[in-house]
């Protein structure tokens, strides 16, 4: 497209997966790259906020205590109690940690000067998913016993016998492969795609700004869209943190369920 290629400057370099790789800040190790530093920073941030929120717990809460209690109450009630049911209290710390950790790291994607959602590196969602995976299997095996758990998973009662041929491999694949894969990929994909689109619209706008006048006008649209998309990205980030935690709670509830 000749409209986008100038005579003396190169064509537009579209963002790709290489934009998510960072050099290490000092030294040579992978532990000093930007995503890892951001993850550590997010843990410090969350701990400071919630320690400050629960420090002097008054009956009439102060503002920071109210904010902390609102987040905790949301995870405890909407995600813990409504989904898991009677034994929810021992899973609330786990779910609360996942929710705040993913939410903070997602929000890093739109904060100026940070602007990198650490969950867009596949390693971090995979790490959280491993914990969720081990949790829901361990809870089910501890409650029902390994043999009964697998038997109820593959040979559900109340289904005609010939369906077991199709159902058993499908259920095994679902519980052991597809659930962790989609759980991690959903979070990773949303963060990756959102960050990529933000880079694309911002860099595209900047590229078009150096061109003819009509392109300068189009670049304003590009910048405006990247601004609007930032707000949409905020919604998606909160939603993805909520969905991850909700699905983890659902899998744990399914592991604890008595019927089938």
């Amino acid at each position, binding site marked *: 497209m000749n409209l986008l290629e100038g005579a003396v400057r190169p064509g537009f370099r579209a963002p*790709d997966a290489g934009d998510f790789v960072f050099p290490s800040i000092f030294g040579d190790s992978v532990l000093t790259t930007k995503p890892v530093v951001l993850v550590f920073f997010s843990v410090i941030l969350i701990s400071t906020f919630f320690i400050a929120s629960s420090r002097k717990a008054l009956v009439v809460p102060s503002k920071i205590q109210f904010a902390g209690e609102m987040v905790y109450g949301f995870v405890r009630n*909407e995600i813990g109690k409504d989904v898991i049911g009677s034994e929810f209290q021992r899973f609330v710390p786990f779910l609360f940690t996942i929710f705040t950790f993913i939410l903070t790291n997602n929000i890093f994607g739109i904060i100026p000067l940070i602007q990198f959602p650490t969950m867009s590196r596949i390693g971090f969602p995979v790490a959280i998913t491993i914990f969720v995976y081990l949790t829901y299997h361990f809870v089910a095996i501890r409650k029902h016993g390994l043999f009964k758990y697998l038997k109820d998973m593959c040979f559900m009662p109340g289904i005609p016998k010939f369906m077991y041929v199709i159902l058993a491999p499908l259920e095994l694949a679902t519980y052991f492969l597809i659930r962790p894969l*989609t759980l991690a*990929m959903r979070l990773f*994909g949303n963060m*990756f*795609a959102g960050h990529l689109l933000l880079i694309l619209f911002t860099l595209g706008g900047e590229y078009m700004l150096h061109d003819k006048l009509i392109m300068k006008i189009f670049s304003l649209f590009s910048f405006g869209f990247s601004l609007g998309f930032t707000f949409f990205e905020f919604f998606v980030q909160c939603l993805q943190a909520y969905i991850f935690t909700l699905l983890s709670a659902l899998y744990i509830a399914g592991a604890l369920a008595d019927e089938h």
Partner: protein
Amino acid sequence: MTGTLGIVGFGLSTIGPGIATGLIFAAYINGVARQPEARSILQPLAFLGFALAEALAILGLVLAFVLK
């Protein structure tokens, strides 16, 4: 014509989730229209269903970029 097959794959992979999102939110709007008190009960279900359906479209987009 230039481009990658991945982009075509991504385009195809958004058909299903697009229809699914429409169905999910049509059901949600219908439910809230018939009984406005059910709004707070149906809303988490609507967003959960939407995220589950959207996951496959997002997979298509990501794999189009990652597997070049």
